[in-house]
């Protein structure tokens, strides 16, 4: 299948990218592993494709008690992240898509694509991450949960670009984990769960079960899932997903607890 006609421009830096994105119906492309398939289906018909893939936004580094992930870091890059407490990041990245997708697909692209079943947003939510975003008029920081507002919908403006994904380092002695049960054909999560266990709290975030990935209410996982808004579709009914969510969330939590030795 062939995408609808479009023009292509390669951004030389963030300011240039933002300027190019000023065109109505322009769309940024990084790895293209979500965008190109929907362009082929002509669900997306951008007038201009702004290639940001060569900007210097790929670094992954710890600074000031935070892990800074460049939005152009690929799943293959993230599979190598190794930091106590942040185990869920690499664990999640290794299972995303397939080898080819992991070579090109980026974390920034995935987060702003906002697929309700994408894996990494659940991890970012459980870890309390934020997005640093730039526009032609300035920059702002958005907690990931405020960025994700609906299926394939974020609170970012058309001329805003994610420039950093910032994950606070969990307190020493913390551990995290990611677990999912995937639809066998598409590979997308029927239910995915990220868990963070610290010495005084546990946080679980789910994906694949609602309009956006979300953080479960504190307290007992079963109670929280019983009270959560969970959707069903032709692949898995609401009842099935709710039951599966308990299993997957408990597995993620158990692994996080085991890692921290509690």
């Amino acid at each position, binding site marked *: 299948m062939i995408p609808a006609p*479009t023009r292509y421009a390669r951004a030389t830096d963030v300011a240039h990218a933002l300027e190019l994105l000023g065109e109505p119906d322009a769309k940024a492309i990084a790895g293209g*592993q979500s965008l*190109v398939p929907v362009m082929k*289906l002509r669900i997306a018909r951008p007038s201009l494709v702004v290639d940001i893939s060569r900007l210097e936004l790929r670094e992954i580094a710890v600074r000031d008690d935070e892990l800074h992930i460049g939005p152009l870091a690929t799943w293959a890059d993230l599979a190598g992240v190794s930091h106590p407490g942040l185990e869920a990041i690499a664990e999640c990245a290794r299972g995303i898509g397939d080898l*080819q997708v992991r070579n*090109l697909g980026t974390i920034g692209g995935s987060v702003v694509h906002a697929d309700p079943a994408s894996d990494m947003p659940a991890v970012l939510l459980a870890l309390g991450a934020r997005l640093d975003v730039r526009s032609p008029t300035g920059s702002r920081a958005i907690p990931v949960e405020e960025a994700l507002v609906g299926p394939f919908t974020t609170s970012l403006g058309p001329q805003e670009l994610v420039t950093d994904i910032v994950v606070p380092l969990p307190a020493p002695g913390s551990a995290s984990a990611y677990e999912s049960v995937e639809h066998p054909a598409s590979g997308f999560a029927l239910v995915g769960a990220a868990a963070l266990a610290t010495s005084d709290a546990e946080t679980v975030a789910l994906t694949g079960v609602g309009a956006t990935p979300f953080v479960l209410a504190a307290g007992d996982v079963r109670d929280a899932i019983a009270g959560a808004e969970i959707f069903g579709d032709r692949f898995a009914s609401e009842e099935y997903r709710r039951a599966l969510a308990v299993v997957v969330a408990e597995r993620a939590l158990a692994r996080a607890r085991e890692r921290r030795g509690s």
Partner: protein
Amino acid sequence: MSDTVRFVVNGEPRSLEVEGRTLLVHALRDGLGLTGAHIGCDTSQCGACTVLLDGRAVKSCAVLAHQADEREITTIEGLALDGELHPLQRSFVENHGLQCGFCTPGIILTAADLLSRGGSPSDDEIRHALRGNLCRCTGYQGIVESIRAVEAAS
């Protein structure tokens, strides 16, 4: 609107006029006549169009030709050196790694990426690496054995 893209394909500099929307797989097949990158699906799921972009396996149907500008591409046509089959190609012949052969170029290039990372992948790791490549003939066992045999020989 078309522009020129330049890339190194199988060791040779090539340039080509492409549209903004042109997919890499179409540039390779229709523009350069490299039909070893197969089109097996329309949804970027089958992996038959896999090529190496700067040494890493990518689905060339999920990459715009412009995105490959100034990069190095290896297709199945470029894997044999001086008439000698690549060890993976030979192993697929010897270990019944293919039947109809349609998925084979993509699978061999994915395996080339996997083996280039070093280490010694287990059968589970080989199968995990092949998740983005569909084969409807072999049941995968012969494919896994072909890749394992290369790994063992090297």
